[in-house]
Every structure is written in C-alpha cells, then in structure tokens.
C-alpha cells in the first residue's frame, strides 16, 4: 500500500531522504507544469519547481496536516512562481537582452496529426492557437487559476486553499480569464465570417 503524501512529509521533516525522493518523484512533473503555466519559461519553470522542493526540504516541519499535502505544496509552488513572474529579474531587463528561450517548436506542431475534415480541422487549430496565445497574455494569477482548475482539475475549494483566497475570488479570476479567451475566440470567428 502506497504511503500517503502527508506521512512522507512528516518523515521529510525528520530529514528522511528516501521520503523526500519519493515525494519529488510523485510531484516533479506536475510541479514543473504548474510553474511553467505561470512563468511561461522552461528554465524559470525548472528553477521555480526545484526551489519549491528545496523549500519543502527546509520547511516540511511547518506542515501541520490541517490541509492536504498537495494543497500545502501547491501553495508554496504557486507563490514562488507568482513571485518570480512579478519580479522578473530586473537586472536581466536592464542589463541583458532579456530574450526568453522557450521551446522553438510551434505549439501546433506538438499536436498529434488530425484525423477530421481538413477544413474544419484548420478552423479548430486556429481557434486553439488563438486561445493558447491569449492564455499567455492573461495576468499570472488568472493563468494560475485557469491551469489549476482546467489542466490540473482542482476544485474551486482546492484552488482557493492554494491561493489563500476565497472561493468567490477564484471564481472571479476564472470568469475573467474565460471571458477574455472567449472574446478572442469570438473575434477570430467574426474575422473568418467577414472574410468569406
């Protein structure tokens, strides 16, 4: 029977390295994904997610078990990512070229080949690309809520616990994010209809 995350965290507080390794193995992919959804840079995502695990090692003793470990860890991770995004390393902006070096492969090329009608498929891909581009431009907190709810399938209550805000606030963030994305999608449809 698998050891619960909460029990592993208690062992990490006693500096049990095996327990730490197990938690890292369980959460590393999700941590990286969540970090990337906020910072939108692979190097920063790696750095932020690793920092979250380092903080876990340092502060496991502060986990009291009142919330689920997943909630506690995501809170730590999301705060780090939002903080990174907000600060954005001013010295890079002032002193360096500041270019972000994300995967150069266009997002659409990372999708599997379509099977449906080519014309409809092109429209669908256009829509998806428009939505993905719009996600990039959302405020980080809205993007965090969107990713946690839609991609990580966390409930409103869980996201509220992660972000340490009310459920109403989470719903507002999600509403604003989806409204923005919907407007983008609608603009694309209008553009296509007027060009026909």
């Amino acid at each position, binding site marked *: 029977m698998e050891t619960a995350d909460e029990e592993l965290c208690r062992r990490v507080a006693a500096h049990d390295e095996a327990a730490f390794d197990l938690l890292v193995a369980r959460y590393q992919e999700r941590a990286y994904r969540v970090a990337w959804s906020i910072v939108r840079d692979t190097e920063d995502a790696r750095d932020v997610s690793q920092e979250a695990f380092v903080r876990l090692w340092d502060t496991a003793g502060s986990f009291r078990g009142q919330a689920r470990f997943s909630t506690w860890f995501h809170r730590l991770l999301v705060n780090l990512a*939002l903080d990174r995004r907000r600060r954005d390393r001013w010295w890079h902006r002032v002193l360096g070229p500041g270019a972000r070096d994300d995967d150069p492969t266009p997002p659409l090329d990372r999708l599997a080949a379509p099977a449906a009608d080519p014309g409809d498929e092109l429209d669908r891909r256009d829509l998806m690309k428009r939505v993905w581009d719009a996600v990039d431009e959302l405020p980080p907190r809205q993007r965090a809520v969107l990713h946690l709810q839609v991609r990580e399938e966390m409930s409103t209550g869980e996201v509220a616990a992660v972000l340490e805000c009310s459920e109403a606030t989470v719903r507002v963030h999600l*509403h604003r994010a989806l409204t923005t994305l919907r407007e983008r999608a609608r603009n694309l449809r209008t553009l296509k209809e007027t060009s026909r």
Partner: protein
Amino acid sequence: MTAGQHPERDLIAYVRGELAADARRRVAAHLADCRACRATVEELSAVVAAVAAAPAPPAPAWGRYRADLAARVAARRGRRRWTVRLAPLAVAGALAAVLLTLTLSGPAKVDLQSDAIAVLDLMDNLEVIDNLDRLPATPEG
C-alpha cells in the same frame, strides 16, 4: 435567478459541472429557452476544451533535474552558514559591479554587463538580492 435573467456567472460552473443539483436544473431549464446562453455555453465549452488540450511544456531531462535538485538541497545546508559571514562583503561587491556597469559606456560594456548579471544571479541564489531591488516591480498581470 428570475425569469428573463441570464445566469452568466453560473454558466461557467455549469460547463465545469460544479453546480449543485438544484442550480444545475435551473440553469438547464433556462438554457432550453435561451439561445444566447446556449451559444455562450457552447463558446465556453470550446474555450475550456482548447485550454485543456494545450500542449504540455517541453519536459526537462528528469535525470539532470533530480541531480541538480539533490545538489541544491545538499548545498543549502552548507550555504546558510557561510552566507551569514560573507553577506556584507558579497552585497558590497555586487553593488560595485552593478554601479560600474551602469555608468560605463563603449565596447567593454557588454562583457561587464554579463558579469554583473552573473553576480546578481548568484546573489539571488544566496537570497541577498531582495534588498538591492530599487526599481519598481512590474505590475502583476
């Protein structure tokens, strides 16, 4: 929700299946008679599906990731002890590097800028950098 009112805020919860049974029935009944809200639900569903289908970010080499993480955790313990002793010296050094870089001009500027970035990154890792941040933060979002 009275007759004629569009349950706009409930539509997102409806699409996500988060409404309680009574509320879900009320919204469904409204949708049966309201083409505008049905269109909204359709648009929201398409957007949510697009977000859910977004490609995952390029994954790091997990072996390297774990090795780097192990090194960071190991370094953390040792770093805390000598960071406290060397911090004032490190801060002075970083400040000098930054000031020198910002006041210089000409061909030598590029190399010194790279050095200053490297120093400041190191200071960031030593959690000393927060006190040096004098520029306003970018507004969130």
